[in-house]
């Protein structure tokens, strides 16, 4: 098994959210199958919310950041094992 990995990166500095709002379920869990257009997380920077999509279809292999953690521009957020 040498599947190719796609890494979702943060386009800007901000707060990483795994859920659409504080009391909702996470967009994705580790091991979950996603389509390229599925929203996998949100980055909030200066009150602007940017939804990040998987980008490639596959399975969420690892989520590298904790919910509500501060992330930097270009920081790796999630690994997706491409189909």
């Amino acid at each position, binding site marked *: 098994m040498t599947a190719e990995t796609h890494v979702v990166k943060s*386009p*800007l*500095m*901000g*707060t990483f959210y795994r859920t*659409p*709002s*504080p009391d909702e379920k996470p967009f994705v869990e580790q091991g979950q199958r996603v389509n390229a257009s599925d929203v996998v997380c949100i980055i*909030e*920077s*200066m*009150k*602007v919310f940017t939804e990040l999509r998987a980008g490639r279809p596959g399975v969420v292999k690892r989520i590298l950041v904790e919910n*509500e953690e*501060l992330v930097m521009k270009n920081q790796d957020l999630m690994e997706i094992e491409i189909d």
Partner: protein
Amino acid sequence: MFRKILIANRGEIALRVIRACRDLGVRAVAVYSDADQGSLHVRLADEAVPIGPALSRKSYLNMDALLEASRKSRADAVHPGYGFLAENPEFARACEDAGIAFIGPSPACMALAGNKAKARKHLIKKGVPVIPGSEGPVATVAHALDAAENVGYPVILKASGGGGGKGMRIARDAKSLSEVFPVAAGEAKAAFDLPELYLEKYIEKSRHIEVQVLSDHFGNAVHLGERECSIQKRHQKLMEEAPSPFVDAALREKMGDTALAVVRFLGYTNAGTVEFLVAPDGAFYFMEMNARIQVEHPVTEMTTGIDLVCRQIRIASGEALLLSQEKIRPHGWALECRINAEDPDDGFMPSPGTVEELVLPGGAGIRVDTHLYPGYTVPPFYDSLICKVIAWGKDRPSAISRMRRALFEVRTKGIKNTVSFHAKILDHPDFIQGRLHTRFLEEL
């Protein structure tokens, strides 16, 4: 007068209130989140109290932490600034229950002013002109379609819970209204935790013009003239001026009288702003009452010479407003540019980071309200407003020319900002002619 005021805010407005406190000889208590330890408002206050982690929800929006900080510092009043909890009646009530004066209107009045659909309904009954629209909220698409049939297209959906462009959508026909309704409701729910929408007729080429009012606890109220705030990006103001190039003396008097009537009908006290939509034919309609000090208040301070934040504090402390309408004689012209930490060359993408180099403008007629200093790191957790440049001149052309000079002098390194974008607006022929409307920037 109060002995000590806690400022439940951050950034430039926290500094603004600290300055008013110092002018009045009142001690100022700053609060700060973990992200703001090195902020200027912390350094320039008399005392500073930490209130929690960086996320607003856990600090600047955390009522318990703020009340605890007020008690601990023995503040006898709280100034909420703008944004955060400034228009939260629950917070105002909690302050009062704790025996701490809230510098703003009463909680009940704030609740009425804050629910836009309710305020609108209340004022229609009193004969205040409002834009034709739904009577109260529209709960379903069918209800919205009915209301739109009545007033005629185009129409605009707005959120009952608040402003800032969230939950706002224009629809030009029934099909697009059905499409945008769920989107607007979803946005309103996310932004204000209230999906409730109302609907108004959409007036093309309209202006956003607002009237500043001051009202004390003894029934004295005055207005301080208007501000034109039509330069907006996604319903967020970017540039404001006083007076409005559109408003003449007769219209000013009519709008001022209407604003004071709104103050009376709502039982409003302290500083507030009555927002109007003004049609190209000069007809004006009440939009909403902002129950707080506003970002753009300095342009009114520059033309009237009245310190609005000091007035807020004095009114809240129980002083009578010794100002008569005849004595308020605005003169000259003032402009404000809201400089945001955003990249105008990249879709206004937020640009937090460290300000490595900073030169701020000065000279005749220029005022700068900012919390920036060289080496300061703009955190990504809060609003992108980093600096307000205000220019005063004897007339509009001289205010514009001073603003151009001021923007030229701004030098920053390390973060992107909107200075170049503001400079472009100042050179636009329609702007120079004062031909403004709220979609001015969209149509550039």
